[in-house]
């Protein structure tokens, strides 16, 4: 483990997410629990954002189900390194189905941010993008700076998927911006926006 390494990373998570979600158009977004959900909320609420408040390890698999159901829409899963580590098997499942419209962006600060900034396995030798590539994800990479982010942002929005990027960001304890937390309402809001009023009748 090298717990000091990440503190020198140049990329800041709120700026990264603000960029990823700028001009998001009809992008469908699933966020993993904790800081990625707060980051997305800070970038602005949308009915096409479904923030998880639990179900750790499930964000990527949830994105897969959504991507299969909506093959004409781009689906982005925005999650953290701890959440992704709990669902590594889902990368193999995603590779097996290979949805062209699914992209996963992991904000990798090498920390469990919500529980006190304890190091995750990526603070050691674990390389999430290498795991994704070995699982069979077609487009993968690790982002470490602004130039890399610009390239990754294009792939996350437009490349034929599945796409996976680990974006190395500095650990930061930021002011909370919370998304709505009523699960039934979030689910129905998303479905009505996507499918129309009939979705809840």
């Amino acid at each position, binding site marked *: 483990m090298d717990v000091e390494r990440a503190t020198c990373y140049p990329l800041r998570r709120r700026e990264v997410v603000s960029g990823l979600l700028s001009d998001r158009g009809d992008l469908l977004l699933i966020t993993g629990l904790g800081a990625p959900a707060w980051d997305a909320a800070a970038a602005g609420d949308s009915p096409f954002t479904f923030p998880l408040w639990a179900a750790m*390890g*499930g964000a990527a*698999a949830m994105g*897969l*189900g959504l*991507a299969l159901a909506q093959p004409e829409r781009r689906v982005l899963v925005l999650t953290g390194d701890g959440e992704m580590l709990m669902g590594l098997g889902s990368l193999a499942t995603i590779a097996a189905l290979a949805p062209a419209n699914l992209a996963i962006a992991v904000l990798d600060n090498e920390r469990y941010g919500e529980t006190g900034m304890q190091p995750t396995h990526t603070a050691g030798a674990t390389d999430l993008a290498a795991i994704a590539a070995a699982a069979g994800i077609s487009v993968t990479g690790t982002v470490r700076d602004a130039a890399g982010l610009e390239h990754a942002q294009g792939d996350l929005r437009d490349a034929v998927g599945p796409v996976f990027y680990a974006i190395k960001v500095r650990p930061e304890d930021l002011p909370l911006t919370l998304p709505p937390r009523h699960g039934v309402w979030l689910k129905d809001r998303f479905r009505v926006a996507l499918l129309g009023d009939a979705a809840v009748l």
Partner: protein
Amino acid sequence: MAGADWPRDIFQSLSDLDVRQVAFVPDAGHARLIEMCHDHDAIVTVPLTTEEEGVALLAGAWLGGQRGALLMQSSGVGNCINMLALVKSCRFPMLIIVTMRGQWGETNPWQVPMGQAVAESLKLMGVMVTAVEVAEDVGATVKEAGDMVFSGAGGAAVLLSQRLIGAKTFDDRIPD
């Protein structure tokens, strides 16, 4: 006649329910059903590495307007427990079909702890449970459970008894 080919009865019920994503960790008891789903153009089959992926997957499918079903062996129920928070918190429809081990005729005692805890575990997480012992009841039970969950009732599991699917033995694989 219902029951004579109960895997086909389940397939027919899933088709009647307009299920479009079928997620599974393989099990011998589900093998024929999985093959039928795989061969059907309107259904996407999703092989999982662990059953909890299927709970999240089908929540995502529902967000996108598709219905799904999750197939697993009883040991897989234990892998799903925390992920079932999605069903209770958000009332995602979750239709689960479980082939049972650890009961009726089980010869592997290590299967018994989870098998015996399946129904109570699911109920603790708010999932409705119906156990089926008779082949003739399988198709209709799946259909009725699906009608409940897809009209907004949350999660329902249909447990297919080892009495129905046949207890697994090791005898035929041990050399004489």
